[in-house]
């Protein structure tokens, strides 16, 4: 119990919150000065995992808000068929798999980043998504279908900007050259595919294995009766 209170007492300290606010505000500097920003993020300890978590949660919320509140003109989705956990998973799973695979690949090739750094860098890099998409939700309610070009352009910018920042983040975190970073991004994507493939194989094997024992048990019970 003592351990718990000790851990929780951190939240009552003023310095914790000011540090969190400062590291979170730093994300705005990072997205406009990526090269500097990402170097200082990890090497000068200007970022924090707490802030990274907040950015990821903001991204998740943005994704759901986007589905829920965007004008139907730009949002061709049947709300009755949306599974909110699937929406969360569609962000969190790729993020987790990316971090794991990127770490796995880069550790073998002289990458300087730790798992923590990679996660922090990636989370800070997806800041523009939430930052642009939330105003876009409001914008979508003010414009018509015919004026949708603005919406599409900004929506694309939010993704392209995030993608660019991820590359910059990886470059700084691992202290790679641009060429090497791009190469390792491609390798990471391949690694992610292999990762997913192995997981699917694993789960299908496991479920087949269970099905075998279950049917065997059923058969035995049937015979015994």
């Amino acid at each position, binding site marked *: 119990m003592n351990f718990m209170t000790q851990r929780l007492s951190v939240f009552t300290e003023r310095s914790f919150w000011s540090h969190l606010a400062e590291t979170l505000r730093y994300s705005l500097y990072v997205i406009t000065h990526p090269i500097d920003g990402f170097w200082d993020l990890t090497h000068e300890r200007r970022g924090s995992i707490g802030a990274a978590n907040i950015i990821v949660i903001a991204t998740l919320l943005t994704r759901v808000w986007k589905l829920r509140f965007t004008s*139907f*003109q730009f949002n*061709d989705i*049947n709300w009755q068929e949306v599974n909110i956990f699937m929406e969360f998973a569609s962000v969190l799973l790729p993020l987790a798999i990316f971090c794991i695979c990127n770490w796995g690949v880069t550790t073998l090739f002289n990458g300087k980043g730790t798992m923590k750094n990679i996660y922090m860098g990636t989370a800070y890099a997806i800041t523009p998504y939430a930052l642009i998409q939330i105003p876009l939700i409001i914008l979508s309610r*003010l414009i*018509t*279908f*015919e004026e949708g070009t603005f919406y599409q352009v900004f929506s694309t910018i939010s993704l392209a900007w995030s993608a660019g920042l991820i590359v910059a983040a990886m470059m700084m975190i691992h202290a790679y050259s641009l060429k090497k970073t791009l190469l390792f991004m491609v390798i990471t994507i391949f690694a992610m595919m292999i990762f997913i493939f192995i997981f699917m194989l694993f789960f299908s094997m496991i479920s087949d294995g269970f099905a075998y024992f279950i049917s065997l048990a059923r058969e035995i019970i049937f015979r015994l009766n």
Partner: protein
Amino acid sequence: MILLSIGCSLLVGGAFLHAEDSYSYDYWGNLQHGPDPYRVKTVLEYKQFSPDLPLRDPRGLFIRGDIAWVCDTGNKRILEIVIAGKETGTTRRVIDSFINKNGIEEPFESPTDLYVDDKGVMYICDTDAGRVLKLDRDRRFMLEFTKPTDPTFDQNLSFMPMRVVADRLGRAFVLSKNINRGLIKYENDASFIGFFGASEVTFNWSDYVWKLLSTRAQREQMASFVPTEYENIAVDSDGFIYATTMTFETWKLLGDQAKPIRRLNALGNDILIKNGEFPPIGDLSWGVAAGADGPSKLNDITVFDSDRYVALDQTRARLFAYDSQGNLLFAFGGRGNSNGRFRKPVALDHRGRDLYVMDAAEGSITVLTPTEYGNIVYDALDEYNRGDYDASAKRWQDVLRLNGNYDLAYIGMGKAYFREENYKKAMEYFELKRSEEYYAKAFALYRKDWVEDNIVILFIFAVLLLAAPPLVGHIRRVIREVEHS
């Protein structure tokens, strides 16, 4: 309550179609059941109009005025049946021969289809004889449309006319078996003009690669790139030809590349209006059930005066009614033995709002007439087209009372409100059924009105927004100066 409802269903059950047989599709392509749009008025059995000889393989049905012409192909004759008035269901005349050029009676070989113009002149497809006959009201020979001798027509192909329509000037459009270059168009003196309405040959990369990889023998076995062969044709009141086709690849249907229903203009281009969420292709999802499999195969079509059309599906013996914009109004019918269902429906025509479906297996003609619901939907569309938006809105409200799952009714209400300049209400209805196009129109006008009404507030807001940063900076500077001094 239960007894009462059973009683009701017993009372009306016989006359109506079957429960859960009538439906339409919503925005998401989900099937939404609705009330029956049509009920069976009467079934004209062959015993009634041809007591001595049952119909054998009847193929063609044509209706003009109070008369229905039935091509009793197997018996090589055409029946003229009265379908209105006291003598409904009696045969007025049996045409099994015509008076040829030399004034001698000549029998038909196999009459498969006919078209009758408003003067009573008959165009008859005599398939096995390889000719289309133009006969006057008293079945005297007028003209004969035969196999074109033009070099553009492949002389090795046999000429087997299956369907015919004609325009007001007496030009005939003939659909011949084996000809995949479209319809054959004749001048009113029976000379060949050319082919009409063939769809462009599409190039397919995957086929090309396969051909590169296969041997000559395999290549020869492969079907060559052939354009569509039409299945049936009908002509509307404006002289446009509606054609249906069954030769397409299933996966091309939903993307509107297959185009099973076409409306051909004078140049032979497809100008069918498709403003619905889905193209007019019959059923949108096609599960395997009751021996039926695959997409709808539309084997006949009939066009109402208001450009609404109804197509007959051979796969599941259903009827699909579309409005002039290509929205599915309702789908109904089905395969079966009872009234209102069909075993082998082969031909479809209309008289007013009534539909006539010929069943080749039963040798009967089923007469379907709109129910209250069907009539209200038609009225609502008509009144909107006429410009009577108030009346249209009232009708759509009635439709909603009978069928709350009907997307078109909501959009129709929205349109009526839009015309009344009640944009907010219109937006509500359009958003409910996701009509982006109309919503955008209503919203643009609503926004304009809103900005005009609130221009003062907006102006003040804008001024504040522009003035605030310098003002704040100024105040800060003043405070700093005060503190420093």
